[in-house]
């Protein structure tokens, strides 16, 4: 097991490094104009290019980049977005809290709801409760989150005037005013997570309910409810925990669309801005950030199966032995 984990982590670093190299080359090959801070004079621009190392061969540039990253954690500086010449790491880190704030609340709010409604649907299978829940699963999974977001913004925000149209700026995250302005983005984001969790829980639980040990549990005299909560629910949680774990990790990657609609000053917005206004250092850093989240999520997702359910042998050979 330990050997397998070590191997996976090594592989993860290799993938991250290869991705970083490919991203660097692709981004540096783009038409790379230097922000004309001094009024766009050709000579100054040329001097800046020279000073920032854009005239060197790309392999040398990459060497410098690697040295900066690994010795000083210096990923370059902002040119088009944020404050001019602000370090990229500082700028992006300053955008993280808003994203995490919205996503953490939405995950904390969605997972219990998803589980509760999933259990209800499985318990009342093919009855009206189940049909209603299925209808909502269909609706929330199919309809894109931006449609919900517009709907909320128009009805709740504008017509009824209950909540602010966009999220409040500032860093006072623990005040009521901030939470109130974040309710709509959180809701818009939660529908999809709730529906996904409901669907998983329902499918897993209905499958578990048909297994033999459930029959035994009923035969030995447990009521349906006891059997459901003490035996079926616990077992059907096994494949679900990795899903929830992945939900939690993706918390920091943020939803670009929701952030755009509700003007959340978060990381998704930074990515879109860096692409549309072509700030390549920021793009490089955020793209790398997203890649690392994906890698970590995939790793944890795989490992958690083995940790939660000892019957699954991680990295075993064809005989499913521990390595």
């Amino acid at each position, binding site marked *: 097991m330990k050997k397998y984990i070590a191997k996976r982590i090594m592989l993860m670093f290799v993938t991250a490094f290869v991705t970083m190299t490919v991203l660097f080359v692709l981004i540096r090959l783009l038409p790379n104009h230097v922000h004309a801070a001094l009024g766009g004079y050709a000579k100054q621009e040329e001097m800046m290019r020279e000073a920032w190392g854009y005239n060197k061969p790309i392999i040398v540039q990459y060497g410098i980049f690697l040295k900066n990253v690994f010795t000083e954690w210096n990923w370059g500086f902002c040119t088009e977005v944020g404050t001019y010449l602000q370090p990229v790491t500082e700028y992006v880190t300053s955008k993280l809290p808003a994203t995490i704030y919205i996503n953490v609340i939405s995950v904390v709010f969605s997972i219990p709801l998803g589980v509760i409604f999933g259990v209800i649907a499985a318990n009342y299978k093919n009855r009206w409760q189940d049909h209603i829940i299925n209808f909502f699963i269909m609706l929330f999974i199919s309809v*894109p989150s*931006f449609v919900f977001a517009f709907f909320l913004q128009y009805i709740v925000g504008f017509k009824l005037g209950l909540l602010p149209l966009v999220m409040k700026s500032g860093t006072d995250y623990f005040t009521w005013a901030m939470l109130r302005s974040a309710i709509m983005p959180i809701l818009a984001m939660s529908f999809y997570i709730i529906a996904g969790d409901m669907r998983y829980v329902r*499918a897993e639980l209905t*499958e578990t309910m048909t297994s033999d040990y459930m029959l035994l549990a009923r035969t030995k005299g447990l009521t349906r409810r006891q059997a459901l909560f003490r035996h079926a629910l616990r077992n059907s949680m096994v494949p679900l925990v990795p899903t929830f774990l992945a939900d939690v990790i993706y918390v920091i990657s943020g939803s670009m669309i929701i952030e755009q609609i509700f003007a959340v000053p978060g990381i998704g917005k930074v990515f879109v801005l860096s692409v549309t206004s072509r700030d390549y250092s920021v*793009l490089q850093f955020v793209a790398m950030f997203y890649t690392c989240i*994906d890698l970590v999520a995939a790793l944890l997702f795989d490992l958690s199966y083995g940790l939660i359910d000892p019957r699954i042998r991680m990295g075993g050979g064809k005989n499913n032995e521990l390595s």
Partner: protein
Amino acid sequence: MNYPEHIPAKKFEFVQQDAQIHDLKFETEPVGYLKDAFRRFRKNKSSVIGGIVIIILILFALITPFISRYGVSDRDAYYAYALPKNNLFSKLGFWDGCQTVTVNQQTYDRYEAIPGAVVKHISEEAADARDSRKGSTHKIRLDTYAKVGYIYKTITDQEYQDILAYEKKTGIQVLYPLIDSSQVKAAAYQNDANAWYLTNEKGVAKRDKEGKLRDIYLLDEEGNPLYTKPVGNGTQHEVRVLYSTWYQMLNGEHASFLFGADANGYDILVRIASGARLSFLLSIGVSAINLFLGIFIGSLEGYYGGKFDLIMERIKEFLYEIPTIVIFSLFQLHLASKVGPVVSLLFAFIFFGWIHTSSTVRAQFYRFKGQEYVMAARTLGAKDSRLIFRHILPNGIGYIITASVLSIPSTILSEASLSYLGILNLQTDTMTSIGTMLSNGQSTLSTYPHCLFFPAAFIALLMICFNMFGNGLRDAFNPSLRGADEG
């Protein structure tokens, strides 16, 4: 040997002489895999409805540009933000292009001066006597088509004669008297063709005793209102026309946009249809290419295995780890200026889209290539290509078809999201996308929600139907997957 003597030899006959000893034909109709799947699919009512609505939406996207009065690139800036109007329903008081607004006295006077603009005067709130800044306000039902009102036009002599002939023929008044600009008191109304009435400096109308507006037309020496003023050496005329009748003269009928008009005065209906057409074409193209590539690569990997398999698996793992949004962005940044945004989007979709199909196909090959029936076929001399396409691949056809149909809505949604975010720029005069329309409509969500409503409703309906259709398709092709759902 002793033959029984009492049976004469000529009584013997050959049993098999004319007998047909092969299997009897099936009494019932033979049911193949596809037919069976279709039969199962038909039982699922919601999927059938989903499929029918998808077909209707595709037909809508294909046919609308041909039967609509407006083309994709027809724009009329005067009718920007015009509300949805259907001539059939307009008499009944809804879908009539009207809007209920509350306006101040100046604006109300201006709208009242335009024929047809104020459909209904709902209520009036008198001016606040204590607060002089607050004038009286009016709640009115405003026709968003008529409110354009009068405009100034500079036309040639020939056009002028044509208008006069048109007026004589139909009896519809197009030309209206010019305004005496020396009598316009309010600065804001100096060049406004709608300010034909006497106002004070603030723009509030000065009415006569009966409450009627008093005109300030430009008069000639005899006191008759002037309809034209020569400009540019007298070769051209400056005239004042009512825009709705001017439009009627040019187009034969009044303007009416079924889904309203957007910020640039484009017809939303035909823009949605054209955006949807692009989405459908793109997603079906992507799906077909990925299906082909996925089957090709997956078969080679799965059937031959070895080094090729190993290398392709590493490439897939690597591609799979890069977030798709980064891939889309880099493709747009690199290729959009060279081959256009649509083609670079297509490339980006293909770049990682084949991975899923090829993995499914590869898994099928690993499962079946060692089985006895494949060995039997090989022993009988079947070639590799026959083994691949006739014996192994058909096992996974259900999964493959379902996966590629289900990739269509996700492609459409990705395209809409990317163009909404502005990473992908598809907005031109002749082309648009649902995402761009959403992004443009969002800025006027509170005042003109129709710009946003119709594209959003379209994409929501499309996604719901595709999901219902896809679920039915999955159940029909893979009956074994139903277990969890049916219990």
